[in-house]
Structure formats: structure tokens, C-alpha cells
């Protein structure tokens, strides 16, 4: 992709609009897709909507694009309610998961399609299309048809097409999920760079947490149509607001614990302050990330190493406690060699507040 700043990239027409979802509700039959979603996308930021399948992230995006209607609530762009604005007048460029280029048109014609719909003259259309193709690094593919291009190239053309009308909002509906891993990595960096260069407000739907955390300014985690937490990636990872977010973003292990009289919890024989609120009753679990669990070889240690996964600089060991609980721990790969499979170990948690959740009810 071109690194040169094009006239389009410096065009002041592009830039940030504020998008607000207010108490947005949408039901499909008995299924609730959105259950009072409240979310604001700040001008010029890339906000990722992250969540498991069926959490309502795509529905929210499609409502903003005008392809779905909502039962109640409001969708505002720069303070204006766009509920009654038809999809073709919403001024929102969208990149779809399935490329969605028009098969009968060349790359240049695909990019220029929106300009043609707006009645822009042919010469101007072609000039702008060429400019956008340069922006996405594919000026030599102008005369190629979609079937003559790779998936990555098609998605870049789709991105150029979405940007052609200089939209107020860019919508990305899992645009990388159909691509292979290597292309995905390259393209996500390029999309991010382009988004920052143009300063366009972008809503990015994905179920891939790595993608969301690496690309977005903020990540909104959705669950069953509701917003669980919206925060910067680092905050989301280090200070998850709920157990769901903690377990959905990154890896978490659960350890049984007991509450103490002073409002702390006791786990592995040590007292820990609680991060957030302590559930009032019922059995409790402490949630810990693998990098926070310390393991050390010990002949009389209660834990037993049962699995090891090499991840490059670190190795993720899984240890089993006498009560059957399994806990993951990341160790530098060199240190992990001192704990081969089947070896006993001691396990400690850092002296810091821990996230506590109710123990899940066992399935009958």
C-alpha cells in the first residue's frame, strides 16, 4: 500500500463524525439481537465491536448502515437522528466480509461506482478512482476484474470503493475474516494506517480479539445485545469490568477462593484484596491471567504440570491442583524447561487486587 500522502488523504472533507447508539433495541422473532445498546464512537477514532457470535455487533453495524431497522432507540451521526434516512443517503462507506465487489466491473469502475451514482463526470470519476487505487496500493490493477485478483487485493479495492464518496463514517464488517493469516496481518496494519491518515470515524466489527486489540483505539465488548465494557485495549485487558470481558479478552484461569471477614478473598492460602465488587453470596472464583501466575519447581509442590504449549518467547504451562482445578501460567521458554510434563510445582499469585466472580453453576 502506498505510503505517500495523496490529495484525498489530506482532504478536509474526510474526518471525524460522532456516532451514537442510544438505547438501541432489536429483536428477530424470539431472539434479542440488541437489548438497549448505548455506545458513542468519538470523532476520528477506530472503535472495534467485539463479542461472540450472536452478541449483536453486526446488527448494530447494519442498523448504522441502514440495512436493518431497530425496534426502539436512536442512532445519531453528529447529533442527527438518521433512523429515517435511507441506506443510500447515509454517507457511510462499508467494507463487507465477502468482498462484495461488483463482478462485472473492473477495479477502477468498482471504485468509481459511487461517484457514478452521484452523477460525477467520467473524467473526474476516473481521476478519483485512480487516486484511490494509488491510496490502497493497487494502481496497476485498475483494469482487472474482481475474479482476476486475490482476496487481499479485492478487499483493498472494496476499501477504496468505500472511501470514494468521502463518507462521514467507515464501517468494516469483519473485512479480514475471509483472508489467510499472513494477508490478514498485513492488511490490518494498512487499514489502520489509512484510517489514521484520513482521520475517519470507523466502526469495525470483529470476533477476533487479537484483531480488535491491535487495531482499535477503543474496543466495545458486547454480550447478548448489551455493552459489557468499552475501553482502550490495554485497559480492557488489564482492568476488565466484568468476568465475561476478562474471560473473553485474553486467557483467564479460574481458582476457587473463599471470602474473608474483612471483605478480601483467600486463595492458595493467601489473602488478596478484591478488584471491583465482591459477589454477596455463593461460591467464588478468582480470575487470573497466565502471566500473573508464578510457577516454581518444588518436589513437594501441590500442582502438577499436565500440558505445555510453546508460544515463542514464552511457554504456556497448564498445571493441575489436587482438587482438579487447572491453571495456566506463562513462563519464559528457558525457565519452562525446568518444569517438564509431570513435574510437581508450587503456584503463587502476585500480591495485588484480584478479580472475583461467582463460581459457575455446574451443569446437571
Amino acid at each position, binding site marked *: 500500500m502506498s505510503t505517500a500522502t495523496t490529495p484525498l488523504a489530506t482532504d478536509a472533507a474526510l474526518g471525524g463524525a460522532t456516532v451514537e447508539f442510544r438505547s438501541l433495541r432489536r429483536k428477530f422473532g424470539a431472539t434479542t439481537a440488541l437489548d438497549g445498546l448505548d455506545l458513542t464512537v468519538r470523532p476520528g477514532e477506530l472503535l472495534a465491536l467485539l463479542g461472540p457470535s450472536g452478541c449483536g455487533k453486526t446488527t448494530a453495524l447494519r442498523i448504522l448502515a*441502514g*440495512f436493518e431497522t431497530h425496534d426502539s432507540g436512536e442512532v445519531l451521526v453528529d447529533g442527527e437522528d438518521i433512523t429515517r434516512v435511507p441506506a*443510500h443517503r447515509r454517507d*457511510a*462507506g462499508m467494507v463487507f466480509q465477502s468482498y*462484495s465487489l*461488483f463482478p462485472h466491473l473492473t477495479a477502477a469502475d468498482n471504485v468509481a*461506482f459511487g461517484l457514478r*451514482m452521484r452523477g460525477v463526470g467520467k473524467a473526474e470519476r476516473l481521476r478519483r478512482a485512480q487516486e484511490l487505487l494509488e491510496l490502497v496500493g493497487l494502481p496497476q490493477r485498475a483494469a482487472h476484474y474482481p475474479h482476476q485478483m486475490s482476496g487481499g487485493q479485492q478487499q483493498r479495492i472494496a476499501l477504496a470503493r468505500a472511501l*470514494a464518496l468521502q463518507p462521514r463514517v467507515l464501517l468494516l464488517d469483519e473485512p479480514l475474516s475471509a483472508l489467510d493469516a499472513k494477508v490478514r496481518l498485513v492488511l490490518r496494519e494498512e487499514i489502520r494506517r489509512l484510517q489514521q491518515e484520513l482521520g475517519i470515524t470507523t466502526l469495525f466489527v470483529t470476533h477476533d480479539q487479537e484483531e480488535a486489540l491491535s487495531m482499535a483505539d477503543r474496543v466495545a465488548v458486547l454480550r447478548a445485545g448489551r455493552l459489557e465494557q468499552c475501553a482502550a485495549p490495554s485497559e480492557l485487558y488489564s482492568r476488565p469490568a466484568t468476568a465475561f470481558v476478562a474471560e473473553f479478552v485474553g486467557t483467564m484461569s479460574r481458582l476457587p477462593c473463599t471470602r474473608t471477614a474483612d471483605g478480601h478473598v483467600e486463595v492458595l492460602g493467601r489473602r488478596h484484596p478484591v478488584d471491583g465488587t465482591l459477589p454477596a453470596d455463593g461460591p467464588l472464583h478468582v480470575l487470573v491471567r497466565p502471566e500473573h501466575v508464578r510457577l516454581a519447581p518444588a518436589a513437594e509442590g501441590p500442582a502438577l504440570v499436565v500440558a505445555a504449549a510453546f508460544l515463542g518467547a514464552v511457554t504456556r504451562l497448564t498445571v493441575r491442583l489436587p482438587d482438579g482445578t487447572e491453571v495456566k501460567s506463562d513462563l519464559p521458554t528457558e525457565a519452562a524447561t525446568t518444569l517438564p510434563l509431570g513435574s510437581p510445582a508450587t503456584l503463587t499469585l502476585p500480591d495485588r487486587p484480584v478479580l472475583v466472580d461467582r463460581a459457575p453453576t455446574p451443569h446437571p
Partner: protein
Amino acid sequence: MAQLISRLRLWRGAVLLLAGLYFLVPMAASVWFSVDDVDGISFDAYTGLLSAPGFTDSLVLTLELAAVTVVVLLLLLVPAMIAVRLGAPRLRPVLEVVCTLPLVVPPVALTAGLIGVLRWGPDHLMDTPFFQTFVFVQQPEFPLVLVVAYVLMALPLAHRALDSGLRAVDVRTLVEAARNCGASWPRAVLSVVVPNLRGALLNAAFLTLALVLGEFTTASILGYQPFAVWIYSVGNSRGQMSVAVSVLSLLITWVLLLLLAAAGRERRHKTATA
């Protein structure tokens, strides 16, 4: 293994030869019959065609009927199928059954039904537009009633052709992408969906054309004389000419088929070399 492959090739050749003979022998016999003369070979049956009474009229009428049938059928079916696909996918099986129904109604039964409808009309309605419409659709210069019948008969064929074309493209996403680019609903369908159905539209048009060119029962019973009926009537008095017309009719069909294939090839070539 090599022996097996050569044996398979032998069988393939034999099957192709038999199939070729099955089609070519009757055609060759027809051509031979149409040019055979006591003095040797004569093309009188072909040269006399143009001057034969009713030839041009029946051929023109048939082509006109075919053109109008194709237009009416596509105007009815394409928007309906796209609308069902986009707005009510659950109705797809219903539309499919409705479009397939004419297959199980024999043309004779369909025509009998049409006659029943056309004959109905109490005298006191004679001066009403309703009655006049019945009269208008039966005018011999251009019997619109035949278009109605042909549209019904061609419905299953055209539906199949269009359905396979629509299955090959992601209509919903294409329309959404077009709308996202600023195209209104009708414009999205016309600018994006229809061009990608080109092959299916041509197939549907060709199948309808072939059906109308060869349709005999309904036209004959209703008392009109398009090409197929004319060939039959000529066959009663001038056998050689009727076979010559049949051969010509076959050639016309082939030419249309070749044009269709050429259009498809041109499209593929254009996209491959772009």
C-alpha cells in the same frame, strides 16, 4: 491402467458415435428428402419458401410473439425473483412451485381453460372495457392471448434458468454494496444485479424463444397460424416444402443458440484479457 484408459476412450467414442448417428441420420434424411427430385438434386423447396403463401406472415408473427413473450416473461419474473430473494426468502419455495405448475398442466388442458375463459362473458357486458379486452387479446393480427399462454408455458423453463443465475451471485450483498455506494433500490438492481444475470437472462430468453418457435397445440386449437401451425398446414399439401421449412426452423434455432454461446464466450474472453 493404460489399458483401462484406452478401453474407456473406445467406449466414449462409441457412445458419441451412436449419439451423433441418432441425431444426424434423421436430419440428413430430412435434408435429403427436401432436395431429392426425379431429375437429381433440386433446391426448389427452399427457393419456393419465400413466395409460399403465409410463410413470411407466420414467421414474422411467431418472432413477434416470441419477442413480446420474452419481454413480458422477464419483466414479470426477474423483479419477482429478486424481490423474493431479498425481501422474503421464505417464499422462494412457493414461487418455485407456482412457476413449476405449468409443467404438470398439458397444453391441451391449458388451452381448454383459456377457451373457457374467453368464451365467458354475458351479453350485457358487451360494451364494457372488460369485454372489449377479451376481444382485443384475440385479434388475429397479433393474438395477445397466445402471449399469455406462452408466458405460462415458458415459466418453468425461465424460472430454472434465472434461479441458477441468481444462485451464482450473492444478490443481497451486491445490492447492499450498491446502496451503500449511493444507489437507490431500483438503480442497485439495474446497475448491479441485472448485469450479473446476463447469462441467465440470455438462457431464459433462448428457452422461451425455442418454445414459442415450436409451439403448435395452443395456437392450432385457438385457430391462429404462427410458424409451427403453418408448417403443419403446408405439410398436408406440399410435403417437401414442409420438411424444408422444418430444416430451416432447426437452423434458425441453431443460429440463435450459437449466437448465445458466442455472446457468453465474448464476455469470458473480455474478462480474461482485461
